């Protein structure tokens, strides 16, 4: 089953969010070339008013990673190994 990943970032982030956003993007670019089950979308938020339109976004801290509609991180660098495990699990079990 395919796994849908949404990486939500602010268009004008602070220095920390900016660097973390770059690292997250880099990580998913690499994962995408190794894991063909994932569909990645990068959402750039221009305005905080648009938050409600993002499915699964609960904690408003960025970058936020949402996997199959569930938010996994908020403003932190994720553990790549955990992300891989989660993608594998979602791919095998999720009915999303």
């Amino acid at each position, binding site marked *: 089953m395919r796994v849908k990943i949404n990486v939500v970032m602010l268009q004008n982030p602070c220095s920390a969010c900016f660097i973390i956003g770059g690292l997250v993007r880099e990580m998913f670019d690499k994962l995408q070339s190794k894991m063909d089950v994932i569909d990645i979308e990068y959402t750039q938020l221009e305005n905080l*008013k648009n938050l409600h339109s993002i499915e699964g976004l609960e904690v408003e801290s960025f970058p936020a990673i949402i996997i199959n509609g569930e938010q996994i991180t908020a*403003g932190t660098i994720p553990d790549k190994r955990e992300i891989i495990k989660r993608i594998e699990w979602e791919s095998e079990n999720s009915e999303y």
Partner: protein
Amino acid sequence: MNSKQLVLKALKNEEVTRAPWVPFVGCHGANLIGVNCEEYFKSVDNMVKGVTKAYELYRPDGLPALFDLQVEAEAMGCTLKYSPSNPPAVTSHPLEDGIELKDLKVPTESDGRFPIVLEATRKICSTLGDKIAIYGLITGPFTLALHLKGTDIFYEMMDEPENIKELMSFCQEVCTNTARMYMEAGVDVIAVVDPMVSQISPENFEEFVSPYITPLFEYIKENEKLSSYFVCGNATRNIEPMCKCKPDSISIDENVALDFAKEISAKYGVSLGGNIKLTVTMLFGTPTDNINDAKNCLQIGGTKGYILSPGCDMPFNTPIENVKAVASVVYGEVSEFLGAEGSLDGIEVQLPDYKNESKVILDVITLDSASCAPCQYMVEAVKAAVKGLEDKVEWMEYKVKEKESVVRMIKLGVQNIPTICIDGEIKYISIIPTVEELRKSILEVINKKGL
């Protein structure tokens, strides 16, 4: 005492006549002179023009010469991707790509963009340096290590800690040399900007950061310059370890509560800077939001060892009028934005006799829920909380853009927006309650009134 002296005294944790104001103009400088970020960060003239424009518009007491945490990384072989409205981003990490630490060299005046950056800094210091404090910003050692190594750094901190300590030691050398270059260019303050420490625990901080950054602050002090340790992101748990590294000052963003940081920094005799909200207030807010945020910060920060500043590098598109509004608070000219003094004369507002009203009355004081995000969330919380209680509760939004609302706000004793008053009592100031919490508060008053 001129602006520069004001900043220097505040950084030394001394009492001053008013809190100094240091807007962190980095990529925003590009917007001020109508160029994109790439054109800005690669041009001496543009950087000088941008900082000069910020000086003219915002009446600051201090300014950074440049806010770009990628200069050192680029000079050591990291690839950068430039963008029109953000600082450049690091897109490759030499130590991840097969290059060994021993092959990296400490960048000097002739490497990467350093010739441009140092020339711009020298020019800025020579034109503005007698009036305001000029900050030289260097990339902190942990953030630099992350640029060089990529996210593998987090695994190696656990698996191969000695490798990371060796890397941190190298980064310390880079930081020390970069600080030297900026000090020789004439800056007054070295700001060590290390946002990535928000990603590690205090234990990791003390093992992998403190031993390498403390000597850096000592080096700056030996050179008779002042230091500030900048962090952004939620670094709450590392504020105390940061102070223990003995910088003259720390600077935080809105992810850390200013009163908490004030208490900790005061304990260590370290001054504090921050933390006007970058996104909600400066970028998306109105001048009134900025006035209120600045006032709150000034109230908490006080006039001893406190510098009013944004939480971090101001976004490219920050509206000029918002930054000017903050400057107006600093210089005591707020009435310019809220209407001249006396303009409320003759406006009568009669508050309800809350106790004897047949309903519980919620007054929601906002800037305008249609344009201010926190106000919108607060109004939405109220709408959800009163659902099903319409026969017992009445609520109304009062926007302070209207003079009648300002009079009502004054009569209720409300000083911050957004605020919720329940039956005339101030209940939630700036903090948006959960629907459950707010409903519980309303039900308590309903029961008390016997409705």
